[in-house]
């Protein structure tokens, strides 16, 4: 009976799939239970059912998935970098939840129940739907800001900095989440700093039309216009 708490993740995964050791599996469950439960709790919440019963069932479904076909998912895993297995488990877990809710949704739709619409029903479009005044206004704003960004953000990292700006303001990602993405190469603090600098440039340009988007531009070495 070995002590598995000091075993590397890669080795533990191998032990679980190859040796069928109960101690290895106890360590596996101990190490990854919290991670799996968290992902299930959040993903199931998006589908509108994160009850304790559902989460418990989905946790077991996730383990079933890992064990299916004689631990195929574990056997085929290849550690490409430290922490890769954590990412792998997250994706497997999220897919289990999505498949579960897709299947239950399909079952509901195919249950033979018919939903009848009234003849005079006029579906109400949401405020954000395509073609609504708000979405048109937003499209104009995006275009306007994109034009100013072309001027505000310059230098060797202009593509990255523009990407950071849109990920933050348009997609709504946090600075920390952006910092983790491929191709960013900055810490969360670094991302925050870029956002602050670009926002300030943009704010001043948009508030003072005299600065415009034309005319000679004096770029600072960091790639931003002098304030």
């Amino acid at each position: 009976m070995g002590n598995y708490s000091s075993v590397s993740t890669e080795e533990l995964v191998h032990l679980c799939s190859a040796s069928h050791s109960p101690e290895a599996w106890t360590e596996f469950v101990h190490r990854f239970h919290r991670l799996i439960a968290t992902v299930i709790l959040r993903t199931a919440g998006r589908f509108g059912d994160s009850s304790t019963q559902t989460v418990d069932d989905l946790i077991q479904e996730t383990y079933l998935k890992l064990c299916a076909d004689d631990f195929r998912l574990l056997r085929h895993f290849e550690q490409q970098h430290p922490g890769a297995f954590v990412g792998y488990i997250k994706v497997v877990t999220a897919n289990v939840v999505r498949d579960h809710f897709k299947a239950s949704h399909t079952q509901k739709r195919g249950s033979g129940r018919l939903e009848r619409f009234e003849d005079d029903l006029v579906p109400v479009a949401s405020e954000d739907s395509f073609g609504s005044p708000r979405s048109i206004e937003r499209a104009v704003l995006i275009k306007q800001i994109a034009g100013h960004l072309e001027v505000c953000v310059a230098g060797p990292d202009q593509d990255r900095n523009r990407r950071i700006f849109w990920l933050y303001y348009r997609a709504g990602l946090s600075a920390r989440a952006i910092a983790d993405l491929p191709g960013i190469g900055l810490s969360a603090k670094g991302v925050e700093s870029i956002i602050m600098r670009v926002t300030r440039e943009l704010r001043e340009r948009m508030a003072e039309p005299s600065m415009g988007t034309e005319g000679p531009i004096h770029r600072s070495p960091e790639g931003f216009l002098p304030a």
Partner: protein
Amino acid sequence: MSLHLNSDQINELLQPGASEGPRAAGNQGLLEDARRHLEGCTTCQERIRKQEQVIESLALLKTTGPGAKGLACPPDDVWLEIAAGIVHQDSEDRVNHAAECDHCGPLLRQAKEDFADELTPGEDGRIATLSISTADGQERLAIKLQNNPAPSPIVTSPKGRPPISLSSFLAPWRLAFAAALIALILLGIRDYRRVAHLSAGNLQTAAEVRRLEQTVLQQNRQIAELTSKPRVSKIPSTVPPPQPAGSPQIASLVLDSGVTRGIGALKRLTVPKGADVARITLRSGEALEGIVREELITAEGQKKWSQELSPSETEKRTGSLSLLVPAYLLTPNDYQIVLSRQSSGGFEHFATYTFRITR
């Protein structure tokens, strides 16, 4: 002192919590001066107001939820992998797309939120109440996982589940279901008898298929010889020897290296009936120099096929290898192609490709 506030002063005044924190404490005097000036200067008030309007408009940029999917949008599960830190060659381009896409951007945000490491106190509390969160629950689960590769779910508290009574057991829908099941079994028995009659015919067809497979193998060798002189293919001895035949039909698949993709992202190659050869293009991020060994391995770890080759000039330039594998070897299953390059200490693995064969 200048006539109006400069941009640094306006910037300071617009910072959230401008009058709080250690930074504000250092600038307290300057901020006070700026505020006093602002009270009496309509020009600076107007400048501040306009900049505040811009800040408000930036808040309108954020999408509330995923919009309509566009033609350029990748499959939705891509965002799970990127959020989980599973990176592929095209991940950076994908992030670039998400930054300006109202469908993919919110999906990436959701995936990042779902995969975030920090737990809220509420989540912490919820997880603590789960039956598998107890040491006992985890031990029971571990025993089941170790004993049985496909364990049955652990029986948890029946709270919230209605008990099954005799009347519900004999409910009409249950009886109807049972009757339908019996009818299906009877139909199955009848079909089985019919299939038995047909199996003799199948044996004859199988012999024909075997002959065609041998033909394909011969063609594969001819193609390999034509496309790359130094290639040497090895097929396990269980495979029958080849015979010549007409022009081959080819099924194609392009693969990127890496095996840590999600379940849904596994690339599939459907080998149509009559296909003789599968052309598999392997895109590699690595320089393709020297002798490269390609091995086709099944999900069960069985080596089905291998060859060693010197990549052609085109392959070196494009960083892609093109393999021609006899189609009959690719029975429906999950496969890996493992690439190794020759080094002083033998062959060194440098890329793996995972895919699924369907018929």
